[in-house]
């Protein structure tokens, strides 16, 4: 099952994939391209990935959610060029009850952000272009944004 696609994401397809007669709760998440980042108007963006590792990490996240909450998780991340309002990530997590469904869904999106090797190159309405560093959000830092500081993201491994 591929977790990466350049096609528009369809939440309904993920919901169908995780549905089953014993699963009464389905929690979902869509991460959508916003029209601004750190006060700068965003025009569009490009996602790229270290694809074989991104696939493997997504599959590990799905497996972990299954083990911890007996939840079935479907997870897709879009790559390539996205416009404002398009979904970059879609998650559906189904479990017998809603507590487990919400917990698994929340776990999946947090782990995607922490572990899956995907990068985002934003183009701004003012003409600028940046590789986004989530650790630097809130301190817009111009041309040095692409030169990251020592990694604190996962403390070298998860």
């Amino acid at each position, binding site marked *: 099952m591929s977790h990466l696609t350049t096609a528009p994401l369809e939440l309904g397809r993920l919901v169908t994939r995780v549905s089953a007669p014993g699963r009464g709760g389905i929690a979902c998440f869509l991460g959508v391209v916003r029209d601004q980042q750190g006060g700068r108007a965003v025009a569009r963006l490009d996602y790229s990935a270290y694809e074989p590792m991104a696939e*493997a990490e997504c599959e590990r996240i799905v497996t972990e959610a299954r083990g911890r909450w007996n939840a079935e998780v479907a997870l897709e991340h879009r790559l390539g060029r996205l416009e404002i309002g398009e979904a970059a990530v879609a998650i559906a997590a189904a479990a017998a009850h809603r507590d487990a469904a919400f917990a698994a869904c929340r776990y999946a999106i947090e782990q995607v952000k922490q572990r899956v090797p995907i*990068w985002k190159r934003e183009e701004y309405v003012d003409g600028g272009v940046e590789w986004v560093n989530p650790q630097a959000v809130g301190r817009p830092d111009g041309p040095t944004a692409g030169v990251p500081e020592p990694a604190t993201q996962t403390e070298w491994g998860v």
Partner: protein
Amino acid sequence: MSVSTAATVSVRVLLFASYAEVVGRQSLELSLPAPATVGALIRRLRELPGGAGLPERPLVAVNHAHARPDSPLSERDEIAILPPLAGG
């Protein structure tokens, strides 16, 4: 070109996103004295042309799994140097 002997470890190194731009290339092959670690590889990379733009402790993956500075390297491992992740 890597040269593999009993005393060296040859690995393939991948650079992504901003790191590929900083270093000016997306992949290279390196031979390190055995026994080699992720940390030793990073020190070597930072000595190459353009390598000083890499941080001292970047995120690193070995064969598609997150690794640590003391993770050992084996012959033909695929080492990825990962800029700050921005998925989701």
